[in-house]
Structure formats: C-alpha cells, structure tokens
C-alpha cells in the first residue's frame, strides 16, 4: 500500500572540511508493489537516498513523497535494512530480531513464531540463542534481514542486504526474497552492487553515476514473474546485465 516519489532530490553533507555533494537532482517514481533496484559506484549516495526516504536523514533539495505525502519525519511503517548488520551484541539472535517488535510496543508473543520462521528461511534457526559475537559477517547480515522483515512492513528499503554473503547463500537468499516479494507484493527498494541480482529481482533498475549521484538510466526489466534460476541464462537476461554493465566501464 505505498508508492514512493523522488522529485529533484539532492543532498549536500556539510562537514568541517567543506560541503560534500552526495546526490543531485534525483527524480523517479516507484509504484505501489513495485520492486526497484539501485546500482551505482561506491559513494554515489545510494545509502543516503534510502535514509532520506525513511526520513532518517534530512534532504537538502527537492521532495520525497510517500503515498503523495512529503516525508518530514521518520517513516516507521517501513522496514529498513542498513548496510551494516547493526546487531546489538548484548542480545541473542532471536532477541535481536524481536527488537523490532519490542521497539514498536507490539506483543512479542504474537511475533516470536514468525521470527523463528524467518530465521529458518535464512538458515539461522539453530542460532536463535547465539550471540552476535559468535556469528560471521554473513550470518549477522541474514539475522539483520529477518529483523527488517519481522514486523511485516509495507515498504522494504534494503541496503546491500547480501553484501557479506558467499555466492551460494546469496543466490539462495535472492531466490527467497524474490519469492517472498511475489507473495506479498510489497513496495521494495534494493541497493546492490550486483547487476545480475538487480536484474533478477527488479521491475526496474535505476543506474546512478558517481558522486554527486545522478540518474544515468532507468531500465525496465521485461521478464515475467515468477523468475526461476534458469532465467539467468536467457539471452534477454544477459542482454540486460551487459547493457547496464556498460555504464560502469570507463
């Protein structure tokens, strides 16, 4: 139940050494239930864009609309996965996932089973009682993903949720995410460094330039859902990936 709109959004960080322009004139819309990925070189402002969308960082220029209303404060209805897993080392894995519920003053009992199910989906069910200090980077990221999803948010903002994973786990989770999205059709924005992942999951891929980040292209991926693993070998898929990849060859 949510559409997003970016209207000439710009961001300039003011730090001691002077202003840093991270984003410039970013405009695009995301329809309700659409899956959009953002790819672009490191430092082009992708994380910044997500944080502004969630109302966590103020924008410097332009407007961001959620369901046609300007973002002025924190958008707590969203599920945000940060680039770092940001698990709390003093909480067990399960309690880290349930922090989302606790913080929102929802009833923990109502969500514990869902939390465990999510942990199972990402292969972390046997670590429910472990502490983050005992987990690898990829394991932490999987737990963080569960924390992002556990309250069933209406919008997903995912900042490289698979960045620290090995290729095989990553493939599996990408498939799972695709399946889950297809079942629920939530509005989703994914930041990723993997073009093939972006093409595989998305309705559209936003291609951004280096800093200051601007939009180079928005590519519609006309491959019907559901998409199985085999899609990745289709000429159409390969064509999308190579054509987007061309933006990053210098």
């Amino acid at each position, binding site marked *: 139940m949510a559409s997003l709109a970016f209207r000439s959004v710009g961001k300039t960080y003011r730090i001691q050494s002077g202003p840093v322009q991270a984003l410039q004139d970013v405009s695009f819309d995301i329809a309700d239930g659409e899956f959009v990925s953002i790819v672009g070189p490191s430092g082009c402002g992708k994380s910044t864009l997500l*944080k502004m969308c*969630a109302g*966590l*960082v103020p924008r410097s220029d332009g407007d961001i609309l959620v369901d046609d209303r300007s973002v002025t404060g*924190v*958008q*707590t209805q*969203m599920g*945000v996965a*940060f*680039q*770092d897993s*940001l698990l*709390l*080392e*003093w909480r067990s894995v399960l309690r880290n996932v349930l*922090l*989302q519920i*606790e*913080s*929102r*003053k929802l009833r923990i009992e109502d969500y514990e089973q869902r939390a465990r199910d999510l942990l199972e989906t990402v292969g972390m069910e*046997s*670590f429910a*009682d*472990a*502490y983050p*200090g*005992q987990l690898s980077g990829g394991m932490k990221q999987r737990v963080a993903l569960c924390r992002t999803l556990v309250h069933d948010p209406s919008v997903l903002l995912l900042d490289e949720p698979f960045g620290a994973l090995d290729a095989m786990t990553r493939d599996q989770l990408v498939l799972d995410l695709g399946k889950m999205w297809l079942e629920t059709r939530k509005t989703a924005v994914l930041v990723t460094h993997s073009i093939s992942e972006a093409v595989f999951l998305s309705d559209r891929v936003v291609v951004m330039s280096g800093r200051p980040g601007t939009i180079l292209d928005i590519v519609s991926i006309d491959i019907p859902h559901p998409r199985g693993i085999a899609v990745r070998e289709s000429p159409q898929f390969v064509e999308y990936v190579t054509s987007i990849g061309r933006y990053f060859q210098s």
Partner: protein
Amino acid sequence: MTAVQQPTPMSDAAQESVGVPARPTFRARAGHGASAFLRRAAKILAIVVVLLLLWKLVTVVFGIRDFLLPPPEQVLEEMWANAAVLWGHTLVTAQEVVVGFLIAAVLGLGCAILMTASQLVARLFYPALVISQAIPKVAIAPLLVVWLGFGQPTIITIVVIIAFFPVAVSGAGGLREVPRDLVMLGNSMGLRGARLFRKIMIPYALGAIFSGLKVGMTLALIGAVVGEFVTGQSGLGYYIQSSSSAFNVAQSFGGIIAIVVLGLVAFKLVELAESLAMPWRREHSAFTASA
C-alpha cells in the same frame, strides 16, 4: 540448545599436560570457576608474601630504624592489637566512599545522558567538563571545610566532587561513540528519547561507563582519605594522621594497609557489577582476562 561450537571443555590439568596454551579460550560459564578463583587467590597471597619479605629484607639490610620504617611483623602485630579500633575507622571510611561514590555515579551518569540528549547542554558543558579533568579537585577540600564546616557531610561532598568527573566524562564519551547508524536503526523502529537510551545507547556505552566508574571508585577513596586528613574526627585518614603525629609509624602503616585492602575490595565490587551488567562480554569475549 545452540549449535555454537565451543572448544571441547578440557580441564586445566588436561590442557597443561597436552601443552595446549590455556588462553585465549572461549570459557564456558560455570566451567572452572571455582578452581580459577582458588588459583587467583593463591597468586594474590604469593604476591603479598613476597612483598612482605622484600619489606623485611630492606629493613634488615639497610638497618632502618623502627621509628622510620618498622619491620612488617611489628606492623602486623600492631594491627592485630588494634584490630577493633582499626576496623571501626575502616567502616567509617568505607561508608563515606560508598555513599559518595553512589551519589557521584548517579549525578555523573545523569549528566552524561543530558549532555548526549541535548546539543545545547553538550555545547555548554562538555568542554568545561573535559578541561576540569586537569584541575586537582582535592585542592578545594580546605575551602569546603570553610563553607560546610567539619564532619562527614563535608568529606562525602569531597568524595562526590572528585568521583563525579571521571564518571561523567567517560559516560558522555561512551554515549557519543554510539554509531550514527545504530541510532538511525533505533529511530526507524520507532525508538526515541528515553527508550532509545534504554534499549540501545546505554547498553552500547556500558563498557565506557564502567571504566569511568572504576576510576571514580579509586578517586572516591582518595577523596575520602584526603577529606579525613583535612577535617576528619574518624576514618582511616584521621587514623593515619593522628598516628603519624604521635610518631607511631607502625600504626600509620596499619592504616595504610587497611586503605589498600579497602581500595582493592571497592574496585573488585565495581568489576563484579560490570560483569553482572554485561554478561555477554564475560561469556563471549575470546580473550577472557587472564587472572
């Protein structure tokens, strides 16, 4: 049941016989708690005995006369003879330290939280707080006597003033170090204000908070003794001073030993509170502090 791999729990004897280095190791919670405690106690005892022997050696070799540096057995004898009196003074000092420390901890942490929650308060007070670290707070002890008169309230005030600063500075420093993204994560889940502090910021800063509390506790004892030097009618500082003015050096040394023991106990209590407050550190740090 967790699937976390703990290294096979070997007994210490087994470890040594195989020649496996005892540390670093993931230590199981209950594990060898009792034997570790005994080993630590034995170690401390050994250190004490060696120190006493050294002391004795110095007095004999250099032929130091009793009224300058009495031999250890004379000091211990004196302590034993005066045990009840010494214990009474120790309790007085302990009370000042505990009360003063607790007040300083509450005020210091409250101040640290205020400085983190409000930009304005931080801008006004944080620089002053850091600079005030360089000022020897005991210097104002005689002034406090002028303002507040003689007696325990004055001494406790000195303790509070001296112990407050490290608690506030470390606490504020720790709270400032909470990563911005972690705060944003909290915000995105609807955490703000007091709940954000309770669920994320304070637990994150506990390590820094406790290092401030440890310094604060050490300084609290110094504050109490100095306060007793200046205005006490009882307590270990008073005991040492009055013994010294009577040239009873053995008795002074007895007082000093009592202070050392009191200081160790107080410090260990803070450490104990730390490990209770942060069980995840205790259980999951790879390098458990070697005893």
